[in-house]
């Protein structure tokens, strides 16, 4: 084993280990520096892995396993091992596909609009004008609001008899928005967008501030007007953040639960019955088997969506 091929830093780092190796008996010397360094590395990762194992990996595997058991409607009767048949019946059911459809609709209603608003507001708030700090605080304030608080505020605003929105829309006293088959999902999506806007705004503002001023000045001198500067310089440099917001936003929307539980409980007539809420209802009905199958499905769907994003969309992203 020679130091010749190693970078000087690595060589210096390895000197202690090499010294130890020389003193050690033959057998241990063969294990080599790489193996020992790897062992030290794993040691550092161990605490995190332990926590993940207990709270993530074990529940994940356990959920997958529970999907093989059909739970009887009465607590006294034991669950029965049914193999893959439950996976098959749940994943081919109308309820599953309907809830998946609602979920996709919900994602489409929340993620692109949320990102557009985030980029838009951040671009506006990037202006150097008096009092802009007030607006920056305002735009980011929803980050300090919980889903529950946001839901309660909108629940009141959307109330068919006393809600301001109903009054403004001229439908007070009639059917509420949250009770409308057509408008319930867009309403829940609106609450979600509103609640997430603070986070997206902060992300985009940070990304905007990281764009070197030189580049925008160079573009100005190169003859680019405001619009061209935005499309050709600002936006490409924001793309990693937009991509990140997209991935995180899609995952969050797939898992959006609080606002649906507080505003519609999946209704009216299952029109806001997204996958996660369907899972929750099954769970509430003590149908752990179905709930486990749905949870597993949700996991693989998110995994697939994220992989697709990284595989195809990330190519269009510029990392500095």
């Amino acid at each position, binding site marked *: 084993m020679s130091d010749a091929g190693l970078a000087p830093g690595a060589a210096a780092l390895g000197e202690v280990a090499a010294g130890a190796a020389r003193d050690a008996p033959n057998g241990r010397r063969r294990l080599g520096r790489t193996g020992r360094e790897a062992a030290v590395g794993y040691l550092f990762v161990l605490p995190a892995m332990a926590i993940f194992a207990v709270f993530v990996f074990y529940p994940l595997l356990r959920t997958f396993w529970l999907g093989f058991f059909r739970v009887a409607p009465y607590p006294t009767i034991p669950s029965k091992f049914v193999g893959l048949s439950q996976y098959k019946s749940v994943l081919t059911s109308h309820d599953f596909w309907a809830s998946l459809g609602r979920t996709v609709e919900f994602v489409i209603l929340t993620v692109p609009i949320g990102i557009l608003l985030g980029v838009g507001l951040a671009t506006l708030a990037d202006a150097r004008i008096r009092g802009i700090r007030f607006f920056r605080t305002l735009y980011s304030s929803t980050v300090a609001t919980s889903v529950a608080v946001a839901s309660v505020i909108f629940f009141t605003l959307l109330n068919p008899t006393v809600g301001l929105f109903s009054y403004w829309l001229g439908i007070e006293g009639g059917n509420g928005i949250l009770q409308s088959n057509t408008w319930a999902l867009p309403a829940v999506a609106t609450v979600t967008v509103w609640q997430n806007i603070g986070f997206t705004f902060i992300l985009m503002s940070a990304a905007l501030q990281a764009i070197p001023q030189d580049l925008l*000045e*160079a573009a100005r001198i190169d003859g680019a007007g405001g619009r061209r500067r935005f499309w050709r310089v600002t936006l490409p440099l924001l*793309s990693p953040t937009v991509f990140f917001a997209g991935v995180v936003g899609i995952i969050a929307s797939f898992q959006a639960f609080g606002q649906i539980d507080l505003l519609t409980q999946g209704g009216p007539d299952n029109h806001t019955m997204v996958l996660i809420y369907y899972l929750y209802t099954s769970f509430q009905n003590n149908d752990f088997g179905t709930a486990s199958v749905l949870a597993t499905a949700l996991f693989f769907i998110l995994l697939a969506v994220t992989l697709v994003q990284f595989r195809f969309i990330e190519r269009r992203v*510029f990392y500095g």
Partner: protein
Amino acid sequence: MDARDSRIGLGELAVAEPSRLAFEGVTKRFGDVVAVDDLTLEVEPGESLVLLGPSGCGKSTALRIMAGLETPTAGVVRIGDRVVNDVDPKDRDVAMVFQSYALYPHLNVRRNIEFPLRSRHVPADERDRLVATTAQSLGLETLLDRKPAQLSGGQRQRVALARAIVRHPRAFLMDEPLSNLDARLRTEMRAELAELHLRLGVTVLYVTHDQVEAMTMGQRIAILRDGALQQVDAPRTVHDRPANAFVAGFIGSPPMNILAGRVDTTDGTAEVVVDGGSIPLGPAAAAALRQRGLPDVTVGVRPEHLRADPAGTLKVTVALAEYLGHEQHLGCRLPGGGLLTVRLPGTRSALGPGDAVTLAVEGDPHLFDPVDGNRIDV
């Protein structure tokens, strides 16, 4: 014209009509800070003028005012005959090269060079032709598909230049374009830039804090201090006849020795007494000081104008010696405690710390008013 036409393919790179640039009484304040103080300065068409000064002297602000990136608080800015105070940068038709190069990191070299052409809706075939010619003249043909991150510092610098040259601007503004390069590359690029200027015959306003860059790049040098113009002259004049003690101390390496002195004409010969030694004055200098009538004076002596000479008038002790290969610098202590830098050509002198030497001054020293620092003309 000859310089332009002598090179193949460069004729069409040349700007048809380089423009005059002018600051007329320009002031820029940021709150209470005066960055540029009543600056009046002209860059002639086709001239290369260097704005030189220490950090924070307002040189970059002045350049940014010319580019339109800053608005002057007072005064008039002209490009050609046109007052451009209220003209947007994109309509000023000047090109700027930034210290950071400011290349668009997400675009390859070709798209970077094209950017100003696309902004101005130059047709595709014309664009391709211009990019090809420019890339060729700067040796970038093989790099056109690379991203800036895949280029070396010198290559990035060339791309930034190409982006500036490609659109035939009325003038080039350069903001410390060589500061991010290592010493060797800087020397190379300096020569290239000087040659480029000669070749293209364009107007260049060049900002730097590096006096060597200023001396080599500028047909004239404008020295700024605290936003105020100190002197505008050809490099040789700035060096040989600095307008004041600040310019004298700023130009030249190692810097000029500047000492407080007192004129003595008691024994018939005129000399300036400094810190336990004296510097003899020629008849003209003596006459100028006599006419002034005040005994106090600031004297400046360049390190290269001091030499070891037993018949000299400054008895000093060597405090430190620096060997640079082609020359050596000695730090010498005067009896009064002041330090004199001496520059000796070659490395043969065996002088070291602790040695006693007698120094003589070649020619007349520079003389400055001790109050306002202005040069006393002889």
